[in-house]
């Protein structure tokens, strides 16, 4: 487990260096005995550690939505996409003051096992190409996640 922790953090730091995001983080599903929660486990470029306490319900928040749908997500301008009064539903965006972001699912054995997020603290910094690039990266596997997506056809 200790080895994984180091791996994920190093990988994430490296990604940020390559891709130039202000902030990147990795959410993983944590399985407790009778609960199943999603948490932002690793981050790089973060303003503080507040995000660590956040437990996301499936379908809630950036990670919750990507986790549940298994679809990548792009928000070019947070102010336009999310009403200010609903911003509290997206703690990571609020706490890290993100203004544009992309988020992709991390697959493992045909299931979504986590979410990778890259964000900027100013608007209009993300493009569809960046979303594809991040998605491709996620499909190559991160840490112990093999990136194998479930294809229905």
């Amino acid at each position, binding site marked *: 487990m200790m080895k994984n922790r180091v791996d994920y953090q190093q990988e994430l730091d490296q990604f940020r260096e390559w891709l130039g995001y202000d902030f990147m983080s990795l959410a993983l*599903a944590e*399985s407790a005995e*009778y*609960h*199943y*929660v999603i948490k932002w486990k690793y981050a790089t470029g973060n303003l503080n550690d*507040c*995000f660590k*306490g*956040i*437990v*996301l*319900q*499936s*379908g*809630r*928040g950036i990670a919750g939505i990507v986790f549940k749908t298994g679809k990548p997500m792009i928000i070019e301008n947070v102010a336009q996409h999310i009403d200010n*009064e*609903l911003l*509290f*539903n997206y*703690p990571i965006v*609020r*706490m890290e003051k993100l203004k544009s972001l992309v988020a992709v699912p991390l697959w493992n*054995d045909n*299931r979504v096992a986590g979410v990778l997020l890259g964000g900027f603290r100013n608007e209009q910094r993300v493009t569809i190409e960046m979303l594809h690039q991040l998605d491709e990266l996620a499909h190559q596997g991160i840490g112990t996640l093999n990136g194998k997506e479930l294809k229905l056809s």
Partner: protein
Amino acid sequence: MSISNPNYSINSLMAKLYENSMEAIFFFDQHGKVLAMNPAAEEIVADDVLEQLYSGQANAICGVCRGYMSETELRTCLTCYFNAPDVDDFSSFQVYLDTKGKGIVSYAASYHVIDSDQQLYAFMLKDLTTQFKTQEKFYQNTMMKHVIEAQENERKRISRELHDSVAQELMSALIDLRVFKYMTQDTTLLQKMKHTEASMTRLLDDIRNLAVELRPAALDDFGLEAAFRSHFKRLQESYGFTVEFESTLCQKRYSSEIETVIYRICQEAVLNALKYAQTDKIKVSIYEQNKLLQLIVEDEGIGFEIGSDPIGTGLGLYGIRERAELVGGIVNIYATPGKGTKIHLQISILD
């Protein structure tokens, strides 16, 4: 007819009544021509219709009349009181007039013969707007109470069903699944089972969350303090907001109605703070003082100007007041731009 005081004659009294009454009085002949109308009547009729009335046009009153309430219809011109005063009883009915400056107003009216030989009629109107408003308010209040009660009961039922039945069934299926793990050495099968177990655990969690969000069982089973503590813990976990909670209630219980009102108002007030205050700290205190149950929700966020246009729908604060009224509670809202907001609810409780 007798009059007790010789200083007054019935004629002078009637003249005074006619001149100064708040009631509008019209006199008509059998053709619907106005013979006379008092100042209160002139007041409510628009100028052009007034002219028609005075010039003696028949049925000029139709220019202001917008129908009356019959036994079968809310507003109608069928069997008009004016045309057929003898057919139905028009000693007291409700009529709608398009009044000068006040739009359509409903009046309690009477239309009856005062001289059957000459066929003279008196039409008298009493403005009932305030009474109707009061009545409507009372009615609305009762309706609101029933609606809220029905909603809470339905939520309680679904929440219980989810928690006690659906979640329990799923739980036993999950336990069965866990037992399977010890019955095989097949690693692919084990891996697959692990995934299924994860999915089912997540589903179980979703169902539990749904149940708590509908209506926390803790509120019914353990009371306000317990329900608040778990609600605030969830806020902290899900949204990263810290709620500083103070309570001196311990495990004291109140009527289910009061507990529901307090819980829902607090929930709404805290949600408002989350949405608009732009702060991550909220203070909630609940205590009993002078036979009053008190709830205070305050934040040191951006506040707002009381009476200004709401940023949201504005229904939140309205709903808070409505709910408080149901149990005879009083809500005070204090807000200063830049300094924060405080909501204070007081409900009287009887031992």
